[in-house]
C-alpha cells in the first residue's frame, strides 16, 4: 500500500517537474524534537529527496533553546535558515515568507488549514499562507484511573466543573495515599484554558487585558489549591522565571491523580507507563463560561530571506500533502490540524487502549475549544501575557507577594512588555 502511494507520488511530482540536471539545491530546516518526530520527518524527507533529486533537505536537529533564544536573532540579522519549526507562531510573522503564490494547490491548504492559518499571519494580513502546522496540541487533563478505582470513587463526568474535579481528586489522593491530587504544567499557556473556562477574556476589544474577573477566579483557585495541598509546590514552585516544568515523572510514578498537561504527553506515557496503571486523557473540566483548554502547536515557516523560496515551498507542499501528512501524524501520535484528515480520522499506530481513549478525548477537546482560546493563541504577542502570568503567580505561590500584588504586577508587566515591543 505504502509503496503504491509512494509510486503515485513519484509519478505525480515527476510529471510536474522536468528532470533536474543541475546540482541539488540545499534547503535547511531548523528542527527541535519532543519525541520521535525528527526521526519520522527525516524518513519522510528521504523519500522526498529520492523523488526530487534537485533538492537536498538538511534537517538541523537543534536544542529547543536555540529555537526560542537564538533563532529570533538569526532572523533579525538576516541569517535565518530556509525553514524552521517554531512554537512562538506569530512571534516574527513579518519575516515569514508568504507561501501562497508558490504552492501547487493553494485551495487545498486554505480548505484544510483554515482554522490555523491565521496563527502564523503577520498583523493585518488575512489571506496569506505563512506556515504549515506540524502538530496541533490541545491542553487537557490526564487522569490515573487506577487510583480512582482503588479509592472506589467514580470519575467525574464529561461536564464536571474544575471544583468538582478538585474535590474528587483530593478524595482519591486521601484514600490511596497519592501525594499530589492535581498537577499542572508550569506554564502560562496551560493556565489560560481553565481561566477562559472561568470567564477570562484576555482581551478588551483587541487590546490585551490579562487580569479580569474570570482570570482572578482561576488564579485564586490555583493559589488556594497550593495552600490546601490540592496541588504540590513541586511543579509551580520549583523553578523561577518563565521556565517550563512538567509533572511527567510524578504522573508516571503514580503520584498524581489528575495531571493537566496536553495531548503531546500520550506517546511518552505509552512508553513509560505502558500497562503499569490505567491512565487516559479526559474532557476539559468546565467553568461557567466554557469547558476549554488551549490550542497550540508547532509550525514550519519559511523565511523571506531564503534564497530558494520555490524549493522551500515544494518541501512544505510535500509535507502538507495528505498521505505524507497523515503518515507523519500516525507515527508521531500528534493531533492533526488538517480538517480533512481530522474528519476522516487518522490511523494512529497505537494499540494500547489508554492511548486510543486519550486520542478520542483529545479530539473531543479540540471541538470544545472556546473562541477566546483561539483568539489568544492567534495573538502574536501572547507570550508577554503568559510570561507575566507564570512569573507573578509563581511568586505569589512561593509566598513572596500577595495575590493582589501579583495581579498588579501582572498588569504592569504586560504594559511594559507591550510598550517595549512597540505596541500602542
Amino acid at each position: 500500500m505504502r509503496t503504491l502511494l509512494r509510486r503515485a507520488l513519484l509519478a505525480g511530482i515527476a510529471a510536474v517537474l522536468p528532470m533536474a540536471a543541475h546540482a541539488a539545491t540545499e534547503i535547511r530546516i531548523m528542527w527541535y524534537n519532543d519525541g520521535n518526530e525528527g526521526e519520522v520527518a527525516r524518513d519522510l524527507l528521504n523519500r522526498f529527496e529520492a523523488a526530487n533529486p534537485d533538492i537536498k533537505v538538511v534537517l538541523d536537529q537543534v536544542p529547543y533553546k536555540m529555537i526560542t533564544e537564538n533563532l529570533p536573532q538569526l532572523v533579525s540579522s538576516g541569517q535565518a535558515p530556509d525553514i524552521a519549526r517554531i512554537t512562538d507562531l506569530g512571534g516574527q510573522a513579518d519575516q515569514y515568507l508568504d507561501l501562497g503564490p508558490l504552492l501547487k494547490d493553494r485551495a487545498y491548504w486554505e480548505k484544510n488549514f483554515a482554522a490555523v492559518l491565521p496563527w502564523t499571519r503577520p498583523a493585518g494580513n488575512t489571506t496569506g499562507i505563512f506556515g504549515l502546522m506540524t502538530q496541533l496540541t490541545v491542553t487537557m487533563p490526564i487522569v490515573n484511573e487506577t487510583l480512582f478505582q482503588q479509592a472506589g470513587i467514580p470519575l467525574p463526568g464529561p461536564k464536571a466543573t474544575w471544583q468538582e474535579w478538585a474535590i474528587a481528586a483530593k478524595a482519591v489522593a486521601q484514600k490511596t495515599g497519592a501525594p499530589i491530587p492535581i498537577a499542572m504544567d508550569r506554564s502560562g499557556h496551560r493556565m489560560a484554558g481553565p481561566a477562559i473556562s472561568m470567564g477570562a477574556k484576555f482581551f478588551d476589544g483587541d487590546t490585551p487585558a490579562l487580569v479580569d474577573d474570570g482570570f482572578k477566579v482561576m488564579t485564586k483557585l490555583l493559589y488556594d489549591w497550593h495552600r490546601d495541598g490540592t496541588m504540590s509546590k513541586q511543579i509551580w514552585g520549583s523553578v523561577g522565571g518563565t521556565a517550563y516544568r512538567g509533572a511527567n515523572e510524578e504522573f508516571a510514578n503514580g503520584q498524581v491523580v489528575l495531571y493537566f498537561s496536553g495531548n503531546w504527553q500520550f506517546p511518552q506515557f505509552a512508553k513509560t507507563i505502558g500497562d503499569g496503571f490505567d491512565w487516559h486523557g479526559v474532557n476539559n473540566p468546565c467553568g461557567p463560561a466554557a469547558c476549554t483548554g488551549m490550542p497550540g502547536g508547532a509550525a514550519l515557516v519559511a523565511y523571506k530571506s531564503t534564497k530558494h523560496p520555490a524549493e522551500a515551498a515544494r518541501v512544505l507542499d510535500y509535507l502538507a500533502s495528505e498521505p505524507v501528512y497523515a503518515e507523519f501524524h500516525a507515527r508521531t501520535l500528534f493531533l492533526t490540524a488538517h480538517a480533512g484528515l481530522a474528519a476522516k480520522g487518522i490511523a494512529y499506530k497505537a494499540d494500547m487502549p489508554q492511548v486510543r481513549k486519550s486520542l478520542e478525548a483529545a479530539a473531543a477537546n479540540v471541538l470544545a475549544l472556546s473562541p477566546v482560546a483561539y483568539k489568544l493563541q492567534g495573538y502574536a504577542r501572547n507570550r508577554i501575557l503568559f510570561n507575566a502570568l507564570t512569573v507573578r503567580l509563581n511568586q505569589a505561590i512561593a509566598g513572596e507577594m500577595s495575590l493582589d500584588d501579583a495581579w498588579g504586577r501582572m498588569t504592569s508587566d504586560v504594559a511594559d512588555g507591550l510598550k517595549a515591543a512597540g505596541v500602542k
Partner: protein
Amino acid sequence: MITTLARLIDAPFDALQRRFGAARMPYVFVAPNLLVFGIFVAAPMILNVWYAITGGTQFMPADRPYVGASNFAELLDCTNHFIPATCKQDRFWRAVANTSWFVAFQVIGLVAISLLTALILNRRMPWRGFFRAVFFYPVLLSPVVVALIWKWILQPDGVLNAIVVGSGGARVPFLLDPGWAFSWTIVVSIWAHMGFYTLILLAGLQAIPADLYEAAEMDGTPHVRVFWRITLPLLMPNMLVVLVLALIRAVQSFDEIFVLTGGGPGTATQYIVQYIYETAFANQTHILGLAATASMLVGGVLLVLTLLQLAASARARGEAGR
C-alpha cells in the same frame, strides 16, 4: 626537518624586526592578542553601551531609538532600594539582593573549605596525589554537567531523599523550599570550584620555609599562634588571589544555578546574571536596553571591588617587603 620548521616560524618575525627595529618588537608581540581582544571583547562592550542608551526590542543597533538615560532611571526607580517590592523593576532588585547574600556565603564558605582542605593536603601522608586529584576533579566538569548531576540527586525522588526516607525522615523538598534551594546553590557552587582554590592555597603553603616552623616548634609556640603568626601571613598573597577570583566568579555565577534551580522557587535563587540573560533572551520581548544597563552596573560594581582588593594586595605586598 625540525630546524627548517623553526626557521620558517622565525623568518617572518625576524623580518618584522628588521623592518621596525628591536624597540618596536613589544608591539608586535602584543598585537595579535590585542587584535582578537579588541574585536571580540572590547568592541562588544562598547556596543553594549549603545544598547544601554537605546530602547525597543530590535537587535540591529541601527534600528534602535535613542532613549538617553531612561533605562538607568527605570532600573534604579525604587521607593526604597532595600525592599525590592517597592521598585519598578522588582525582579532586578531581588536579583541584586539574592546575589549579595549568595556571594557573601559562597565566598566565605569557599575560602574556608579550600583552606581547610589545603592544610590537610599539606600534611605528610600516603596517597597525597590521589586526594589532591579527588578534590580537583569537579573543576573539570562543565557547569551543565555539574547542575544535572546535582539536580538528579536532589529531586524529590532522588537518592538524597531516598536516604532521608530510609533513615526515617520525611521527604525534604530540597529545591522547592526557598531556604533549601538557596543553600544548595551555594553548596553546589563550592563543590564545583573548591578544587581550584585549594591548589592555589596548597602552593602557597608549600612555599612557606620549613625552618620557620622548626624554629617555632623549638620555642614551644602554641600551634594556634603558629597558624595566625606564620601560616596565615605568609599565605596572604595566595589568599588575596583566591579572594579576588572567588568574588568575581561568584558574582558572575550563572550556568550551574540556571540549570539547577532555574532561579526558583519564586525568585529565591535568581541571581543577577540570570536576570540579565532572561531579560535579553528568554522572554519573548527581548528588552535589550534594560539588560545592557544592568550588565554595565554589574561590571562597574565588580571593577570597584577588584580595585579595592588589588589596592589591598599591593599594600600587603609592600608590607611583605617585595
